[in-house]
């Protein structure tokens, strides 16, 4: 047991306090919203991932607390509506949320309290980024982090519609979209995300995606040995895999974990909207415009002739005469 005692840990050293340059910059972008020609990044960062082991999670909300403190957000003090989720949903001030489900396992008749940390999944194929109309408001780094650049955000809410997991929220205060950044500012200086660092049971761990997958394998084997035959890793291929993954005891039924999508992917409607419609629409409009211009240039204009003006005058004169005559008659 000598060396295996150490669980993967998010933080291996305390955060630096000396001034540092960020190491996540423009040159590390592999996708940028509403930007077609992005220069090929000069380097490929090792893909990272946050692994959330739902079976180890005690629902303490340390992740929520750490997230608020690190990101300096201001979640409102709400009320109790009979549940443990507080706030009751993700908000522009609450990037992550523990969702609690009381589930009676039909096979064992035992109650299981399923607690899932909800938040941005950092999809390899991000629906938010696809939907975003503002250049550079959403970016994806080569390490897999999908980040919102608030200076560029126009607050349209398209990312909300684009996201297969219903994550981004638009702030009522500054009308910009907010979500988990995977603590890009921490990762940029070699620290793991605040939630992962805080997590008391290390149900949240952070590392390279490859390491996290390996770690998950061990966890899944442990769960299987404890009778969870369907334990598995949630890394949905429909969105190209995610940089936030779950270990689920019941990976065959992700939906029991507060409606975690079974097979998430960017909605076909969004694909059509941001795909065919965008391109075909622009093409059709351009064609129409070009067609009219060509027609205008080469076809003869529809002009009124002198003759027609005279005809009109005749008609008017006749009518006036007619009227005068009638008046006289009267």
């Amino acid at each position, binding site marked *: 047991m000598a060396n295996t005692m150490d669980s993967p840990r998010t933080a291996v050293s*305390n955060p630096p*306090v000396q001034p540092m340059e960020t190491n996540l910059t423009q040159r590390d972008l592999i996708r940028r919203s509403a930007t077609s020609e992005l220069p090929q990044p000069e380097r490929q960062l090792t893909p990272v991932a946050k692994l959330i082991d739902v079976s180890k999670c005690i629902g303490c909300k340390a992740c929520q607390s750490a997230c608020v403190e690190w990101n300096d957000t201001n979640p409102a003090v709400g009320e109790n509506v009979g549940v443990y989720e507080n706030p009751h949903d993700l908000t522009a001030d609450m990037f992550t949320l523990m969702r609690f489900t009381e589930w009676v396992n039909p096979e064992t008749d035992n109650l299981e309290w399923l607690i899932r940390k909800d938040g941005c999944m950092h999809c390899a194929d991000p629906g938010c980024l696809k939907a975003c109309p503002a250049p550079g408001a959403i970016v994806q780094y080569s390490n897999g982090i999908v980040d919102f650049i608030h200076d560029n955000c126009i607050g349209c809410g398209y990312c909300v519609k684009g996201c297969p997991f219903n994550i981004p929220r638009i702030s009522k205060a500054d009308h910009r979209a907010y979500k988990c950044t995977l603590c890009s*500012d921490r990762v940029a200086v070699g620290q*793991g995300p605040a939630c992962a660092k*805080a997590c008391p049971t290390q149900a949240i761990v952070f590392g390279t995606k490859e390491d996290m997958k390996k770690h998950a394998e061990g966890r899944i084997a442990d769960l299987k040995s404890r009778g969870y035959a369907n334990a598995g890793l949630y890394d949905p291929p429909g969105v190209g895999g995610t940089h936030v993954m779950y270990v689920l005891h019941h990976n065959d039924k992700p939906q029991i974990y507060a409606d975690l999508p079974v097979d998430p992917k960017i909605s076909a409607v969004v694909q059509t909207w941001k795909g065919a419609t965008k391109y075909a629409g622009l093409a059709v409009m351009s064609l129409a415009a070009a067609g009219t211009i060509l027609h205008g240039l080469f076809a003869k204009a529809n002009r009124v002739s002198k003759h027609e003006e005279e005809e009109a005058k005749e008609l008017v004169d006749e009518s006036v005469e007619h009227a005068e005559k009638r008046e006289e008659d009267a």
Partner: protein
Amino acid sequence: MNMDLSRRSFLKLAGAGVAATSLGAMGFSEAEAAEVAHVRAFKLATTTETRQTCPYCSVACGIIIYSKGDVRKGDKAEVVHIEGDVDHPTNRGTLCPKGAALKDFVKSPTRLLYPMHRKPGSDKFERMSWDEALDRIARLMKDDRDANLLLKNEKGLDVNRWTTTGMLAASATSNETAWATFKFAKSIGIVGFDNQARV
């Protein structure tokens, strides 16, 4: 404590920034740099670190308080962030939802700032100077002790017992404060003296 060095090196590759090339070297001018700036500036840069212990439960997690200003240098210091201490064997940098939000305990809007006094029957607190408050408390206590200290019991034994004034000590104070408090309370003869361990 084992430092997992392989993990540390991956973090560098994964975007750690010690040796990051400056934006200027990338060919961006200052203005452009501002426009393309992405990740938030690391907010702990140039803060002062202090090793501390979480004041809540008895796990006693190690924490680091990041402050602007250094009290050791005589500055007025203000807490800007609190995070778990990775070097601490028990919590290894982790914190619970209370510990992770400690900054907002220190900076709570309901922190007390001044001695306050409520007159008998009054419906409000009024500010009082420390001197006035302490003198009055000492006077009230002495008068009560002088009037009610039981010097001897029926058998004539010295019992030096003062039951008409009691004290509750705080199980969140340090051992050193507790020792000072102990000396104070026991020497003046207070017997109705407990801390949260009783409840």
